[in-house]
């Protein structure tokens, strides 16, 4: 009996030592594994509901760039990513971003289409936890403007740039009495204010004769358009995006509004909006975009479009372009930094230039905003593509449409 007991305690002891040893070894190896791991990018975006079409497009662009990047690697490592669905909600976005930083230990955060969520994550996660956050679709100018800081970047155009482009375009026209209408949320008001601010500066005698704001996604816009036309403005600025944009375009077509009143809508020339409408899209609407798969028609853009089509079946939208250059920026910045370190990454990003499908894109050092041109065009049916596209495109360079560094700094210290 006693022998057996001894035996048992011996076995128990052996088990203890072995388990302890494994644990110790694990402890020794853990840090080594952490150093040897890949570069981790955490993506938060809205993959459910109407905004999903843009979020998926951005992700596809990002994945396409990673395919090339990971062939040769960055600092001998691969860039890997993990995604989280924000469901277009600020609180979920914050939780997901925190989870990615705390549990997944991501090196960089990327996202999202929602301006409110992007501002929240920028403030409460990126700035607080000192994790670089690259915004790739959300268009609020406050992200890299007054709410900007060391840890937030934007690889997409914003309302300040679009508003300036719209202001510049409209100031050259003879219209004086304007009506402003749009979606009653952050983006709608931001784009409306930006366009009006710029237009008023360039042409002080313009006036707003009326405004209408509807809830985002409002299905029936006919009453709004009817009352706008009844007021007979010289021109209308619509401040809308996403699925509301499709509704607006349909209502414009149904009421024949484009034939009666000149209209400017930022992203009216977006392929994601125009394609589903087919021949139903109204012609003669002025719009601005920072990317078209058919313009500029240069070899690098053609190659990008061809690769994207081969991989995902449809041409890239502007989010795909943003996703693509985001991946390029991340890879090149880490290479320049020479090691995987968040602060070094930020230093490397500032002023960094990459070759994108439409030419060189610079990450402006002062405000962390990618310098992108705006393409101003008018919707017109294209027999070549079988849909309405942007025509008579005028390019406004990034320097022309972006607020100056001084203006940004003034806004930040207000």
């Amino acid at each position, binding site marked *: 009996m006693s022998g057996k007991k001894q035996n048992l305690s011996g076995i128990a002891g052996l088990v203890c030592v072995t388990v302890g040893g494994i644990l110790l070894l694990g402890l020794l190896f853990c840090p080594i594994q952490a150093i040897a791991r890949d570069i981790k990018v955490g993506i938060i975006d809205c993959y459910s509901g*109407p905004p999903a079409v843009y979020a998926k497009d951005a992700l596809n662009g990002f994945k396409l760039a990673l395919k090339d990047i990971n062939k040769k690697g960055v600092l001998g490592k691969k860039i890997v990513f993990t995604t989280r669905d924000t469901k277009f909600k600020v609180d979920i976005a914050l939780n997901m971003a925190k989870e990615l930083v705390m549990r997944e230990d991501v090196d960089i955060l990327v996202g999202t289409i929602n301006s409110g969520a992007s501002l929240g994550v920028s403030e409460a996660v990126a700035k607080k936890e000192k994790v670089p956050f690259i915004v790739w679709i959300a268009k609020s100018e406050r992200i890299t403007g007054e709410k900007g800081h060391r840890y937030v970047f934007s690889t997409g155009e914003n309302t300040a740039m679009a508003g300036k482009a719209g202001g510049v375009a409209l100031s050259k026209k003879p219209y004086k009495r304007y009506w402003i209408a749009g979606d009653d949320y952050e983006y709608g008001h931001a784009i409306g204010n930006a366009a009006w601010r710029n237009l008023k500066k360039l042409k002080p005698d313009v006036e707003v004769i009326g405004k209408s704001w509807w809830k985002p996604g409002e*299905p029936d816009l006919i*009453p709004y358009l009817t*009352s706008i036309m*009844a007021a007979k403005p010289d021109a209308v600025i619509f401040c809308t995006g996403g699925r509301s944009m499709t509704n607006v375009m349909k209502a414009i077509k*149904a*009421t024949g509004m484009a034939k009666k009143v000149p209209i400017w809508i930022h992203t009216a020339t977006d392929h994601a909006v125009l394609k589903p409408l*087919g*021949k139903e899209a109204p012609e003669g609407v002025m719009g601005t975009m920072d990317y078209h798969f058919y313009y500029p028609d240069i070899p690098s853009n053609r190659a990008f479009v061809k690769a994207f089509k081969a991989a995902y079946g449809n041409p890239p939208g502007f989010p795909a372009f943003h996703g693509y250059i985001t991946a390029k920026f991340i890879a090149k910045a880490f290479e320049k930094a020479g090691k995987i370190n968040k602060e070094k990454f930020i230093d490397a990003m500032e002023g960094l230039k990459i070759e994108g499908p439409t030419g060189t894109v610079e990450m402006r050092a002062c405000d962390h905003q990618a310098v992108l041109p705006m393409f101003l065009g008018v919707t017109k049916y294209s027999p070549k593509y079988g849909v309405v596209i942007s025509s008579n495109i005028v390019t406004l360079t990034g320097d022309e449409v972006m607020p100056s560094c001084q203006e940004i700094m003034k806004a930040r210290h207000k």
Partner: protein
Amino acid sequence: MEAAHAVTFAALGSHLLVGLSRAMILFIVSSGLSFVLGVLRVPNVAHGSLYMIGAFSAYTVFTAVGGQTGFWLALVLAPLVVAAVSFVAERSLFCRLYEREHLMLLLFTFALMLILDDLVKIIWGADYRSIMAPDYFKGSVNIFGSSFPKYNLFLLAAGPVVAVGLWLFTNRTKIGKIARAAAVDREMVGAVGINVSWVFAFAFVLGCFLAGLGGALVAPTVSITLGMDHDIIIEAFLIVTIGGLGNMWGAMVGSLIFGITQSFGVLLWPQFAIVFPYAAVVIVLLARPTGLLKSVW
């Protein structure tokens, strides 16, 4: 805060028409919801999802056939697709739950809504879709000096047709009368030897058919996307509540109030137009908490 400058008679007239045409879509959807509420006592939160499926099915039929035949075929087939989906849901799931309390039914239909939404995403994807009305419904006509889309005229005609059809059905056919009787007293209907379970199945499918019809009718005027269900379901429930639960004519009255206050709100105070229909709902409920017309509950 500036209001629209000239509120003329012509503007009022054209906005009345616009509001009426919107009310027709709301009526078709909410009458289905009201019917299900009345007969089955089920607050079907998934009704909006069925409306969305109606719109997406219309898109599929339209793109497969094309042209004006495609449009009319979509208008017929899409509601039938929705009816088929609801029939399966009723026979396999709902029919086991009628004896449960309302909270359980509410939770169940909520779950069904989430499942249907994801199914739509799996089947049709996240892209925006759009269909076109036939050429003779395109463009606009001049009424009261402002342009009014021809398709909305069609909607103005479609609403009353559906209303009359429903009235004839519930008042002139045997199954319709039984369904109405079941709404008032289901035990009595069972006691006279009628299979209440099948009456319920029928009523449920009819209600959902109307959701599908609403979705197909609205499809040419909006972008067909995920999330279009959430917009309509809240409005439909409000309409059913102010009209009187389960009352078909109540759904009509509620829809008219909702559609017209919204349209006039846009005319009078475009910046805060969203508030008008909801304010109307609050006023109605304060004055008549059980709805304007007699509730069957």
